[in-house]
C-alpha cells in the first residue's frame, strides 16, 4: 500500500515537471515561500488598515496588476 502510494506520489511530482522544461532552482523555490509568506502577512495587515480607512470614507490601495488600473498607470 505504502509502495503504491509512494510511486503515485513520485509520478505526481514528476508529472508536474513534465511540461515545465526550466530548472526552477531549489533555492528560488524556497525563497518564494518566504517572500510570499511575509507579503501575505503584510497584505493582510494593509487590507485591515484600508478597511478601517474605508470606514472613514477614504479609498483603498490598488493592485499594479489588476486590469482596472492599467489606464491609471499609463498616465504615471
Amino acid at each position, binding site marked *: 500500500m505504502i509502495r503504491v502510494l509512494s510511486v503515485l506520489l513520485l509520478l505526481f511530482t514528476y508529472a508536474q515537471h513534465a511540461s515545465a522544461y526550466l530548472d*526552477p532552482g531549489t533555492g528560488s*523555490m524556497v525563497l518564494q*515561500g518566504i517572500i510570499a509568506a511575509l507579503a501575505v502577512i503584510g497584505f493582510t495587515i494593509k487590507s485591515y488598515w484600508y478597511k478601517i480607512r474605508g470606514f472613514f470614507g477614504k479609498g483603498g490601495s490598488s493592485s499594479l496588476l489588476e486590469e482596472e488600473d492599467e489606464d491609471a498607470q499609463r498616465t504615471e
Partner: protein
Amino acid sequence: MEPLSSSFRDPSGFMFSHQGCIYRQVNNSFSATYDNFMHSGLYNRLVDRGLLISHEEVVDGSARGTVEAYRIIKPLQIPFISYPYEWSFSQLKDAAMLTLKIQYEALKYGFVLKDASAYNVQFLNSKPVFIDTLSFARYTPGKPWVAYKQFCQHFLAPLALMAYTDVALSKLLITHIDGVPLSLASKLLPVKTRLNYSLMSHIHLHSKIQQQHADDAGDSKKTTTKNTRLSEQGLKALLESLAKTVQRLSWKMPRTEWGDYYEKTNYSDLASEQKRALVDNFLRGIPDTLEIIQDFGANTGEFSCIAAKHGALVISQDIDPVAVELNYRRNSTDGPTNILPLIQDFSAPSPGIGWGNAERASFLERSRCDALLVLALIHHLAISNNVPLQHIATLFAGMTDWIIIEFVPKSDSQVKRLLATRDDIFTRYTKEGFEHAFSGRFSIEQSAPVPDSERTLYLMKARSAPSTAT
C-alpha cells in the same frame, strides 16, 4: 519547413518558417493544455487586452510540421525581431510588467507561465507583446512559480543594474543568454540597495539562498526543499511584490553628449527645416514600397518620424541609451507607433549568440531593409572609428536598395571637433572621395547641399537592387 534556430528548448512545440512566414507547431504532448488554454477564455482575454500575440490555426495544410504535430498555428507576423540587450530602460521595464500582468491574469483561469524569458516579448506598434503562446501550463495549487528565478535574471537584475549602477549594463544580457546571474548582480549593485526591502529579497537574498541550496538536488536527505508549498494567495503576493519592485525602479538619465543633441547641433533653424524637407522629398521620390526603413544614428528619432510617414515600419537605432529612451517614451505616448527605437553601436553591433552562435540572430542578419537613413553619422564611422569609406559603402549596399546619406566634410565644425585631438590621416575623406567610394556600390540618383551648412545630402540606389519598372 525550416525550424528556427532559436526554438528548441520547449518540448511543447517549436517555431518554423515556411515560404517566408513564421509558424508554430503544437506537439501532441501538449494538446490537452493547448485546448484547455484556448477554450478557457484566457487566450481571448489576453489577446483582447493586447498582451498576447493572436494566431490562426492552419487548417488548409498550407504548412506542415513533423509527425508530432497536433496543430500548426500561424501567429500575427512580427516584421522585425529585437532582443533585450538592444532595448532601452523603459522598453525592458515595460516587457517585465507585461510578463507579470500576463502571469497574474493567467492565474485567474488556472494557468501559469512556464518561463519568464525576456525573449518571449517582442515590440509591435510601440508596445511590448508576448509571443510565446505555448508558455502556459496548468496551475497546480501549492506549487511555487517555476519561472521566478528566470524573471529575476532576465528582468529584475538588469533593470536594477541599469537604474543603480550603469545603464550600459543591459549589455550583460549578450554574454549571459539566460539573464544576469543573481550573484553577479548582487556584487555589482551598490550597497544601498541592500536597504531596499524588495531588492534585498529578490536579488541579494535570492543570490545567497541559491548558493546555499545549490547542492540540494544531489542530497537525498534534503527532500523538504522539493516540497516547498506556495499557496495561490502567496503566488499573487509574490507577483505583486515583483510588480512593485519593477515599477519603482527608475533611471535617472545623465546628461550625455547626445541627450541634448538637437539643441547643441551646428544646424541653424533654417538648415534644420530644409534638411527635414529634403529627407521628406527624397523618401517620397523612392518608387518602391517601403516596408522597413532603417535609421542609423537616429538619436531621438526626429528623422525617423519623417520616415514613418513613408514606410510601414521604421527601426530607429542609436548608440546612446538616453536618446533611445527619449525616442521610445515619446512613441509610446504620442506616437508615431510605427517606429521601433533600439540601442545599437554600429562599429560593434549585436553579435549572434547562444547555441551555435545562431540562437539569437546578429544585427547583420536582421538589418535587411528597403531604405536606409544615414544622417549625420558617416563622420563617426569614418573618422572616429577609422572605417574606410569603401567598407562602409559595401556594408550598406548589402543591406538596402535605397540609401539617404549625409556627407559631413572636414570643414564642418563637428568634424573639426573630432579631428582636434588627433592626426588627420584621412586623406580620402573628401566629397569626391566619398562619392567615389559609394559609386562603386550605389548609383547617385540625387544630391543636394543642406542649406546653411557644409553638408550634402544624397539619395542613392544600390547597384545590386532589382531595377524598377518604368
